[in-house]
């Protein structure tokens, strides 16, 4: 595995210079590795993990998860419809699922009305979408590996120990 990718998978937030130190490369070698990861479409981009409930201006953002049933198509299965849905800006993530429904769609909007409007006007009117079931998120406890609010106890490790 690409050694830089290994470090990215650990989930820390090292700078390029720090990655270079840890992996024993020069900064330009790390940049080459990152470039290669982008070329291989493994590294798609960077995103901060944010707790927006602490930022008043952004706190109004509404998130929902929508279970969508769609009818598969001859030759393409679920892909054409899934890709079409996924292109909407409101959609943050979209997964094909096993079980009681077909697609699980994570959406984000400025208000409850906007998300509801997206579901009723865009999503459910697409031909092939059989039904939707929308669940609004009320509170986030853990996001992408980060605990919100309930951080680990501050360390009390002794500074010098045998």
């Amino acid at each position, binding site marked *: 595995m690409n050694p830089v990718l290994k*470090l990215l998978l*650990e989930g*820390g937030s*090292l700078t390029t210079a*720090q990655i270079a*130190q*840890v*992996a*024993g490369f020069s900064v330009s070698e790390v940049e080459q590795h990152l470039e290669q990861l982008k070329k291989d479409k493994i590294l798609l981009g960077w995103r901060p993990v944010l707790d927006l409930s602490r930022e008043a201006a952004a706190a109004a953002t509404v998130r929902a998860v929508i279970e969508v049933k769609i009818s598969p198509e001859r030759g393409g299965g679920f892909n054409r419809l899934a890709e079409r849905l996924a292109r909407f800006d409101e959609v943050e993530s979209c997964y094909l699922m096993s079980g009681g429904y077909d697609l699980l769609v994570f959406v984000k909007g400025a208000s409850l009305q906007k998300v509801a409007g997206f579901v009723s006007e865009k999503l459910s009117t697409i031909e092939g979408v059989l039904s939707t079931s929308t669940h609004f998120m009320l509170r986030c406890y853990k996001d992408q590996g980060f605990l919100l609010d309930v951080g*680990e106890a501050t*360390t009390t*490790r*002794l*500074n*010098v*120990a*045998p």
Partner: protein
Amino acid sequence: MSNDPKRWVAGHVAALPKSGIRDFFELVAKMKGQDVISLGVGEPDFVTPWNIREAAIFALERGKTYYTSNLGMIELRRAISTYVTEHFGVDYRPEDQVIVTVGVSEALDLALRAFCNPGDKVMFHQPCYVSYHPSISLVHAQGVAVPTYAKDNFALTAEALRAAWQPGCKVLMLNLPCNPTGGTCDRVQLEAIAAFCREKDLLVLSDEIYSELTFEGAHTSIASLPGMAERTIFLHGFSKAFAMTGWRLGYACGPAALIDAMMKVHQYTMLCASIIAQEAALEALTRGWDSVLKMREQYHRRRDLVVRRFNEIGLKCHSPRGSFYAFPSVAGTGRNEKDFASGLLLEQKVAVVPGSAFGENGVGHVRACFATSYEQLIVACDRIERFVQAPQK
């Protein structure tokens, strides 16, 4: 009559030297609030994995608050037996060949108390964990230090053992991989040591607490070598591999008659290890291995980082095959290890431990623990570089 309370302190306790680490601990404590990066610790920076902590909470909720069997919970002893067979290739019966203790420290103390008569000689390699020599003195036995050297990457050699041996030696204590040097022995070196132990009829106390943190090559336990299980007490615990130092849980495995002797001391002193820690340990052995591998991978990368940087800086450092300690030489800096450590702390606010705290053979070295985040290690190495390059005050 004297009023000095010290008149009540037993002679052999009064005679114990103060731990060299203690002085340094106090020096660091004085610098509280000064952005000190400590490479002076002796434990993982990881918190115990959540599933293990959660198992302890669950046990408390179910009212697991009683004493356990002296030897430890049978379920845990079974899990230990399976784990030791799988990872070390030695079979121990959970019923009478395994005892659960309060850390490896207690297991070591039990062994020394159970097997040493006053005046018996106990060999140990040095530099070594700070408590080895004192715990030998505490049972009125006599410690015989066997030096290990930087030229051997601090592996113990049979030649050094033979050179140090003297009549009356009964026990050999091993700690491989070793705190503070990170040195360990490969199979060939261990076979030579094992042959020597058989020749001189030595009982081996093998403390393998860092064995899971072996980065290159497989760890070999001396107990797994032919003819050795019958003369070896295998000592292990959960502190390092599972990041469970504060739980204080270890164990010893060995011939039933020897475990029984250790059990006698244990039942009259400790009774049993904490049931909560035992419940947590059971979870660690059952579902904790993935966490061990993840942590080991990070220690491995951190080791490569600090060893590379130390050598770049001019602190000659072998690459420790195991543990989370680097043990670089500071001889090239023109300072002794104590001046180096205190100067580095005061001028650049990085704490390392002078090697002489681990015995006279640690002179000229410092111990740097790399169980700290990449970010901190990078900054610490940069600071050490500045310290080494600055003109000496």
